[in-house]
Structures are given as C-alpha cells and as structure tokens.
C-alpha cells in the first residue's frame, strides 16, 4: 500500500434509521459509536499506524430495501465495515444481502457488526460468517429474566403480553418453556399478542391482566407500545412487577417516571447504577458533556469497536475476511472489567447480564435527565449465559 493510502481514514458505515419514527435510537447509536471511536482511538493517534476511524451514518429508514440501497452505497464508496442493529428484520435482510454480495463479489467483501438485533436466528439457523453479534440474543436474556423470577417466591401467576411478530412470539414461547423448567409451580395465566404499533390504549389488555390475577408481567414490548402499556398498568392501579427488555431511555424512562417506579424490571447487558468502574464513569461523563440531551445507552458499541480494532492491528489491515477470522473467539475486557467473548462457532458474543429496576433512588447516572434510572438488582456471570450453538456456518474460502 502506498503512503497516501496509509493515511486514509478507516470508514465505517452505520446503517440505521436516522429519520422517521424510529430515528431516536438510530441517532443515539450513531453518536455513541462516533464518540467511542474518537474517545478511544482517534484522539489517541488513530489505529494501524495513524489512520482515523470515520463513522458515516446512512439512513435506512427502518426498511429492508433501503438498508440494501445504503449497503450498495457503502460498497460503492469502498467501505468494508457495516454497523447496524435496530430491528431484527432489517438486520436479517442486511445479513442475507451481505452474505450474497460477498459470495457474488469476492473482491468487494464487507463485514457486518450487529450491535443490537437480538433475534436468535441471526446466530442460529441463519448465521453467517460475515455477521458478528455484540448483544445477547433474546433467548439468553429470557433465561436471565426467568432465573430472576424464579428467585421470587411471591410470584405464582405470570401474564405474558407482547407485540404480534416474531420477536414478541419468541419471547412468549421462551418464557413459557423456561418458567416451566425453573419454576413449574408458576402458572402462565395469559399469553397475549397485540398488533405492533397499532394499539392506542392498553387499558382493555390491562383489564384482562387484572382479571387473570397475575402477580408479574413479562413483555418484550418496546417504543410506544412499552410506554403505553406501562402507563395503562399504572393508571389501573395494578401493582405488580413488569419484566421487560426495552423499557428505558429515549424518553421512555422519563415518560414512565413515577408510574414505573419499582414496577419495571429490565434485562440488559450494559451495566447501570451503581457504577464502580472509573473508566466507565469517565467515559459516561465525557459523553454527557458532549451530548447533554443524549444518554449512553449502548456501551457495547465501544466493546465491539475494541474487538474490531484489535482484529485490525492483529491482521495489519482491514480486509473483511481476515478481520472476521481474527475476531472469532476473541476475548476483550470491557469498560467495567468483564470479559466479553466472541464465540467462533456462531459469532455470538457472551458477557454478563443484569436485571435492573426502574427507580429514582440511588441513581447517579439517570436516563432522559429525568432523575429516574436503572439500579441493578441481579447479575448473571458470563459462563451462566452461554447456550449451545445451533449454527451450521457456511465458511467461505479466502
């Protein structure tokens, strides 16, 4: 490579919604990745002997077709690394498209860093050599959630409600089978599916929940559906824990506010209050200083970047095939000192998981500047989160 080439930035395409209804998460994701790149690498002299990392946001409008269009744009511009994560449908479309593209155009390959899409199938039946997932998949999260429920002796009836699509259904199915294994005495008194984004008022559903006599609720709802459900439960005066995956940040925490206090429990892999790691505190403070209205919702973006950079330094370049090989079975230590392992077999990462509660007590780092935030109650170490791989990976030749 010529001298000039060596100074070119390493460009990363961040393909996520940047406009429309789903833009909020895509936008903070972009800012966080960019911030992490600057904070950890660019400000310290870059990588691969001085090359800067440049993150380019490409708007996929939350659509599979637009994601492909943006993928083609990224490829046209010679980009070899693609980040995406919002929505499993989009992620799986992108994964398929990248797999095909790399097969049809071996000289223009790209690697896919999935930072948030949790459908198990992405590292299961549909796993791809080019796809790496940095979030735990929903079955693992459900495993943690049910383990936590299992420790609560006062829970005997559980109501499951979710959005009517694959993720919502997967949550329901997993909850039922896992609860049956861990606490056979718990009765699942309802397993309801509602159309996604269509329900105006959840009170009718809450009525059913009340009538069922449930003393805990499990839901995979996110976005507006989560807020509306939380509100309706509080309005009806139903005082039972609600187990969720996505009930925080992007206005949700602020809107749930008092209504969700000590009701909402969240499974996640990004450590919340109390934060003990100095590195993490400094990172969070620096981010807040730059973007006061945003929250640091996905610290695993930093972890993923760390792995990527390690792989680059190891291989001395950015060739996606080499990067992918290098990342397999890589282990890095994240900001809070836990080890994250990228399993080579299916490109699924493993890390500790947490169950936290929505509250305004003992919150140092709040969400939405609302005073409310997450306080961790329960931690599951990495080894307990590891599940079998069902991936039969199709490994390309160099």
């Amino acid at each position, binding site marked *: 490579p010529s001298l000039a080439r060596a100074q070119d930035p390493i460009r990363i395409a961040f393909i996520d919604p*940047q*406009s*429309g209804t789903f*833009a909020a998460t895509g*936008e903070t994701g972009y*800012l966080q990745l960019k911030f992490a790149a600057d904070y950890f690498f660019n400000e310290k002299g870059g990588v691969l002997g001085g090359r800067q990392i440049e993150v380019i*946001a*490409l*708007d996929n*409008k939350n*659509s*599979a*077709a637009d994601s*492909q*269009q943006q993928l*083609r*744009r990224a*490829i*046209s*511009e010679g980009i070899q690394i693609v980040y995406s994560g919002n929505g*499993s*449908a989009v992620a*799986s*479309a992108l994964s*398929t*498209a990248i797999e*095909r593209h790399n097969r*049809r*155009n071996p000289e223009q390959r790209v690697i896919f860093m999935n930072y948030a899409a949790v*459908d198990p199938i992405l590292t299961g039946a549909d796993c791809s050599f080019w796809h790496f997932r940095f979030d735990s998949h929903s079955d693992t999260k459900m495993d943690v959630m049910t383990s936590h429920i299992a420790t609560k002796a006062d829970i005997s009836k559980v109501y499951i409600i979710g959005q*009517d*699509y*694959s993720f919502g259904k997967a949550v329901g199915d997993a909850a039922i089978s896992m609860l049956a294994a861990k606490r056979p005495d718990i009765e699942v008194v309802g397993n309801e599916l509602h*159309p*996604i984004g*269509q329900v105006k008022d959840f009170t009718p559903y809450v009525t059913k929940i009340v009538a069922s006599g449930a003393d805990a609720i499990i839901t995979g709802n996110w976005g507006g559906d989560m807020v509306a459900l939380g509100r309706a439960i509080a309005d009806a005066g139903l005082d039972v824990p609600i187990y969720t995956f996505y009930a925080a940040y992007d206005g949700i925490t602020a809107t749930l506010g008092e209504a969700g206090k000590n009701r909402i429990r969240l499974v996640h892999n990004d450590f919340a209050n109390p934060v003990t790691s100095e590195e993490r505190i400094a990172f969070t403070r620096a981010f807040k200083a730059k*973007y006061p209205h*945003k929250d640091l919702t996905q610290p695993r973006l930093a972890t993923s970047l760390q792995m990527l950079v390690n792989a680059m330094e190891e291989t001395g370049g950015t060739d996606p095939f080499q990067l992918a090989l290098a990342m397999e079975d890589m282990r890095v230590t994240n900001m809070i000192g836990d080890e994250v392992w990228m399993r080579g077999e299916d490109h699924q990462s493993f890390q500790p998981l947490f169950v936290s509660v929505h509250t305004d007590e003992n919150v140092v780092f709040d969400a939405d500047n609302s005073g409310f935030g997450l306080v961790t109650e329960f931690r599951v170490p990495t080894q307990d989160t590891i599940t079998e791989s069902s991936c039969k990976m199709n490994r390309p030749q160099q």
Partner: protein
Amino acid sequence: MLKYVSWALFAVALIVLPQIFTSILSVSILNQMCIAIVFALSYNMLLGQGGMLSFGHAVYFGLGGFMAVHALLAIENEQMMFSVTLIPLVGGLFGLCAALFIGSFSTHKAGTVFAMISLGVGELIAASSLILVSFFGGEAGVSGDRTYGPPFLGFDFAQNIEVYYLAAAWLFLATVCMYLFTQTPAGRMANAVRDNPERAEFIGYSARRVRFISFIFSGFFAGIAGGLFALNYEILTEQNLNAVTSGNVLLMAYIGGLGFFIGPIVGAIVLTLINSVLSNYTDLWLLYLGLMFVLTVMFLPRGLTGFLMMHRTPWHLGKLHLLAKPYAVTAVPGSIFVFSMVCIVEMSHSNEPTFNVFGFALDPSSFLSWGALIIIACLAFIALRRTLPSLRDAWDTANAIDTKPGVRP
C-alpha cells in the same frame, strides 16, 4: 414522427445511462427508478386516467412482489424451472389476480367510496401480512435468490447491472403497453368515465366495467413493478404493501403531474433521487420533502410536468428567450434565501459543535453565524419579493399572442 423519436430517445437513455453512471450505487438508483416509474405509471392509470383515487395501490405492488419472491424460491428449490427474466410477469399476473378480486367490489363507485375501500383493503392486507406468516414471512419478509434460474443469454443476474438491463427492458415494454392502452377505446372511455360516469352509461358503457378494466390493468403493471422490486432487492417485507408505499406512489404521480402521460415518470425520477440523495446530506430530509410537496401542490397544481408544459406557449410563440433573464434574476435571491433558511434549520437541529453545509462551516453556538444568516435570509427574501413582479410581467408578455405586448392593463 416525433412520437417515434421520443420513444427511441427513451430507449437510448435507458441503455446509455448505466454506462455513464457506473458505480454500484448509481446502478442501484437507476434500478430503483425503473421500478418506481412502472409503479407510478400504473398508478396514474387509476388516478390520472380513470379518476380513481387509491390509497392502497401498494397492495398490488406488494402482492406481485411477494409472489415473485415465492417464484424465485420455487426456482431455487427446483420445484419449477424457468428463466428469472419472466419473474416480473409472475408478479404482474398475481397483481392482476388480486386486482380482479378486489376490483370486483371496489370499482362499483368512484370518488370517496372507492378511495375509502382502497384504504380499508390496503390496511387489511398490510395487517394480514404480519399475521399470515407462511406467505408474507411476518415482519422479516420473504427473501429469495435471483441467481438460481437457468442463465439467460449467458447472464445469471448475479450483478446489479444485469438486473438493471432486465428491469430497463421490462420498463420499456411496460411503458409502451401503458401508453398504447391510453390510445385504445377502453383507455379513452376510462377518461370519459372519470369525467362523467353517468353520461358514459347513456352511450353504451357500463362505468363500472370501464373502471374495472383500468383497475385490473393497473394491478397488473403494479405487480410487474413488484416483480422488478423482488429481482432487485431479493426481499419483500410488509413495508412494500403498506400505506407508506401507497402514499409514496400517490405523491410520485401527483408531483410529476397527473394530467400527462410522462408526469408519473418525471415524478418517479425526481422522488427517487430525493429519496436516495437528499437523505444522505441531512436527516431532516423528510422535513424538506414535506415542505416541497406542500409548496408544489400550492404553486404547481399540475405538477412538475405541468410546469414544464406551461412553457409550450412561449416556445411556440418563439418568446421563450424573454423568460431567461427574469428567471435568472429571480433565481439568485431565491436560491440564496433557500440556502440560508436551510443553514438556519440545520444549525438549530445540530448536535455537533461545528459542521459543514455544502462546504460552509457553521457554528451553532456563535451569534455571528445566526445573525449573519438571518440577515442574509431577510435580505434575500425582500429581494425575491421585488423580483417576482417582473417575472410575472415577463411571463405575461411571453404568453401574449398579440404583437403589442401588455394589452392587458
């Protein structure tokens, strides 16, 4: 004669364009345009020519596309064997079948009744697509691979450029067919029924049957567009048949100009470009797009094509040159105004300490940037208001038939 020349030009443009814009991205955008044009033209068969305002045209596009993907899957699984060049036809036929069924009850009436049935049917089918997972694949959609069919003239369609030429061929064919349809008795009666359905019945035509015919053809061509989509993206999702897609095609046809055959073509090209180009410069592109729509509807009621066609009279009168200077004079303050407004909007939206708009560095925290931009915007606006009357005068002059200009006091 002119007609044949335009068709030839059209064909040449289709062939040459990807040789000029060669990147993967541009080929992909061209591909998208082909799809959008067929779709928008099919929509205009309904609204522009048949007077049927549909809020659910994406249904036929989407259903055709889904069927096309299933056909791809069937080829992949070796249940069927035919060339993927015929995939759009599969989509078209399925769109036609869907239109046959839905049209059988929805074309009874035009106007609001038709519009609302199309809305209801659209919502129903979009919602069912999430429920009927085996056909629609839920929110993840269905995806297929276009490269499994027998090669066609040695092409296996692995590359986008091959798909482009296939799409362009279909586009050309579909456009010719749709144009010819407007020249047939059925096509002309569609216009008549749009104008006055009652009178049409008294000259021997069942308004319902006439609408029905337009409707199924429109469904057919929408299905072809869906099939092309399936070939290009190899995936169809719920989004391809929901209200957003239906709304989009309505906008394309309208912005382009409903009253003209080429209107939807213009609209499809412009909107595709905006969609794929503007969105890369700013995440406020939807805001600008909305603003643009509203302004177009207000000031160019006959769409972009209508605006161009307005220049036919001065052209025939040989007075087009009279407009050049006033246009230029208005364009200067106009573009400065638009530009400074864009800067102001972008600045108030920005998360970043400084950023560039078309090469200008702006600092949202500095009063200087704000003040300067606001003053520039105001000045440009005043200048614009000053120049508009002279443009209007020039326009009147250029359109006046009399030799003495300005007869009208």
